[in-house]
């Protein structure tokens, strides 16, 4: 279906090629997963398949890429549109029209499909993806999972033989991600569509893949093979594989079911050991923030209804819930972006929406979902010096923070050219310059690979270690919450539906439980790290 022959892609002004001498063959009817750290060329590879690289992005492509027998050198993306359906990272930038039904028809209109056929295929696709009730709705009013399904549907209507997806689930909550993956499964099994997808959140997709292509980056050749084989040596792997490695299982389990079937001996080996609990935050001092009966309306909808929340210094709290549950609104209210329609918000004794920004910035800092919003200077150095100015900090404070969190970042680089992880860290440093006792992170792991996520975990732990700061993070990433948060709050429809220690809140819910908890239930283990530590303590001869 797809053949790469000695493909090298070089972008102008880049230090090295984005892909070097790649040979790859993907047969028809497979669900092929593309994995690798950030910057290893995943998006370039996907772009080369849909013809966007090099026709649209520029750069030079040496070698040959053929898709369904068509050479991408002579076929522009529009000439491949009937065999390749491709959906980028942000479904919103993919939409051309404004309602669901028109969007599904758009591709067929461009290809000149007869009206009767169009009518039939739109109906079929609406049913296949479960979008029938949404057909007349404006796309902008849909939830993230629904938008992603519409984006997939819009390329499916032309009956492509190949579907190319770049991080289809990374912006979605666990339930919406399941929805999208179920659709992909159905396409592969029932329609025989070939699917090629890149994804950072391996815990969600690896068990569905027939084949994994690992791009290790740093000039190493790609590894192609069965998922279990590739995962054994991969630098990026989901927690269930980490657990398998720690327990010395072979072949490695890829799904909860595989691991669960072998978990009994491991539970016995762990015996009566209990995970090391992080000490609960000191609740005696003045809380970093206090929310009482908070209600916020955004336009006609009630985004928050009667929320109570107290954040203590030294604690990390995870805020979870599906897309649109009110997580971002709660964070926004804590920094005064929304004024409450009822109830009260107090941050270090101040009412956020009535406080001058210059004063508030020393009490609370928020890193928004897209850290680029916070960065508007041309270089890292200029960004740092303007942060010092804004916060009234001594010159060099922010630069020193950047150096500590992200060693070796060049002064002259443009914030928009940084990787997602670097950009997040820079935005965090800018926020921390004012030394606020409350730090809020909105969806921090979006687009981060496992290495960048690990670094974020270390940074946040360090921030709260001395008990002077509270951190609240809104996230869909259950693994992050399990690893980092000592308390988890779940929001639904603007109300708090669960609030308590992470261990007891997440294990109780099938959607929010991390993989390790699902495998080792009913024992209270949450992360691979805990299990590895306990194994090393119990049997020192087992290699950790």
């Amino acid at each position, binding site marked *: 279906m797809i053949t790469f022959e000695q493909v090298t892609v070089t972008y102008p002004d880049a230090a090295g090629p984005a892909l070097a001498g790649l040979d790859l063959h993907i047969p028809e009817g497979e669900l092929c997963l593309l994995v690798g750290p950030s910057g290893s060329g995943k998006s370039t590879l996907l772009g080369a398949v849909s013809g966007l690289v090099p*026709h649209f992005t520029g750069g030079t492509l040496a070698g040959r890429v053929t898709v369904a027998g068509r050479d991408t050198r002579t076929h522009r993306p529009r000439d491949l549109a009937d065999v390749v359906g491709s959906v980028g990272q942000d479904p919103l*930038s993919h*939409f051309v029209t404004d309602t669901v039904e028109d969007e599904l028809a758009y591709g067929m209109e461009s290809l000149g499909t007869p009206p009767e056929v169009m009518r039939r295929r739109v109906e079929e696709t609406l049913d296949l993806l479960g979008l029938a009730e949404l057909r007349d709705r*404006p796309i902008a009013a849909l939830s993230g999972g629904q938008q992603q399904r519409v984006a997939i549907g819009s390329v499916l209507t032309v009956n492509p033989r190949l579907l190319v997806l770049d991080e289809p689930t990374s912006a979605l909550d666990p339930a919406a991600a399941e929805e999208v993956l179920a659709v992909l499964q159905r396409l592969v099994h029932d329609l025989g569509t070939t699917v090629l997808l890149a994804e950072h959140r391996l815990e969600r997709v690896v068990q569905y893949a027939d084949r994994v292509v690992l791009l290790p980056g740093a000039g190493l050749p790609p590894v192609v093979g069965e998922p279990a084989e590739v995962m054994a040596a991969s630098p990026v792997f989901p927690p269930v594989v980490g657990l398998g490695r720690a327990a010395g299982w072979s072949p490695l389990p890829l799904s909860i079911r595989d691991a669960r079937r072998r978990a009994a001996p491991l539970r016995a080996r762990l015996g009566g050991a209990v995970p090391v609990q992080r000490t609960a935050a000191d609740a005696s001092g003045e809380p970093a923030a206090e929310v009482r009966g908070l209600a916020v309306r955004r336009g006609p909808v009630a985004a928050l209804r009667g929320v109570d929340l107290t954040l203590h210094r030294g604690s990390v709290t995870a805020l979870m819930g599906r897309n649109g549950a009110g997580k971002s609104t709660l964070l926004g209210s804590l920094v005064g972006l929304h004024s409450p329609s009822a109830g009260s918000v107090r941050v270090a004794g101040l009412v956020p929406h009535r406080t001058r920004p210059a004063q508030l910035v020393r009490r609370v800092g928020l890193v*928004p979902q897209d850290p680029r919003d916070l960065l508007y200077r041309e270089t890292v150095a200029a960004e740092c010096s303007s942060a010092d100015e804004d916060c009234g900090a001594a010159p060099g404070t922010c630069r020193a923070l950047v150096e500590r969190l992200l060693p070796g970042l060049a002064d002259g680089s443009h914030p928009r050219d940084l990787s997602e992880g670097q950009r997040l860290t820079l935005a965090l440093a800018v926020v921390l310059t004012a030394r606020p006792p409350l730090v809020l992170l909105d969806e921090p792991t979006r687009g981060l690979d496992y290495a960048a996520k690990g670094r974020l975990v270390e940074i946040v732990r360090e921030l709260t270690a001395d008990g002077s700061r509270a951190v609240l993070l809104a996230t869909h990433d259950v693994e992050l919450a399990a690893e980092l948060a000592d308390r988890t709050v779940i929001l639904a429809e603007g109300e708090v539906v669960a609030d308590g220690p992470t261990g007891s809140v997440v294990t109780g819910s099938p959607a929010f439980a991390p993989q390790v908890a699902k495998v080792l239930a009913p024992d209270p283990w949450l992360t691979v790290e805990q299990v590895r530590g306990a194994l090393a303590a119990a049997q020192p001869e087992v290699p950790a």
Partner: protein
Amino acid sequence: MVAARRSAAPWSRSYGAFLKLGLLVLVIRLVFAVLLGSPIPGTTVLFTLPEIPLPGWAQGVRLGGRVTAEALVFALYDGLKLAVLLGCVGAANALASPARLLRALPGALYEAGVAVVVAMTFAPHLVADVRRLRAARRLRGRADRGFGALLSVGIPVLEGALERSVGLAAAMDTRGFGRTAEVAPAIRRTTAVLTLAGLTGVCAAVYGLLTDTGTVWALPLLAAGLAAAAGGLVLGGRRALRTRYRPDPWALREWLVSGSGAAVAALTVWLSTRDATAFHPPAVPLTMPALPLLPAAAVLLGLIPAVAAPLPPEPGKDIRR
């Protein structure tokens, strides 16, 4: 009308921004009239600003000085005209769906139409971006209100808009936008000749009509030019592969909406030739403008679409209470 029939689409929210812009224009016009004076002769002096003497080369420009009620009223009328125009553009922007407009275009013009539509959806996205980035300024500890705040988000907003357009262009390309059918070279040449000849004819005819000299030859030439251009469009449409999914029906409601607009325009033009003062209330001498009944009633016809147009679907109602 905007209140009654606007949809939940992102561009519907831009109406408020347009109204504010209209007010700003009005205020600027008045401020200029006060500061710089105006050539309108007037006798009713309201107050006198200290006049700043200017050097000889700036003759004809006056700073400060007497401010007359006549001048102010004239400036108010003038500013109001522009503000109302902006309000109308804003309303059209808030109510029209660019994509549906695009569907009504003939095939040969489709690609040019897409460019226009993308440009039109640009403005509302810009407004949304400005709002988000101003909120982000607050997070950096800077004032989120005022003109300075608006200026400083300029570059990031433009960057974001550019990125969005590039992303959209890529998505459209991968979905087959711009595929063309093979047509015989003879047809291609005929299309070019017809279109060019038609447009030249129309230009010449319009020039003739405007100069009052060639009314005899201009009208037939205009008709011929239009016919040639239309022929070119039809032939050009053969290159386009596109088909239409469920074209919009044209029924009573559509006739009412478009008819009411046309009727207002026709009536106003006709009435203004009969009763010019009703449309240009004089500022000198100062009089209270009377409400001309007929023209006002004619303008009210424009409210018909508020009832005749179909209600936009209301999204989100079933998700949250």
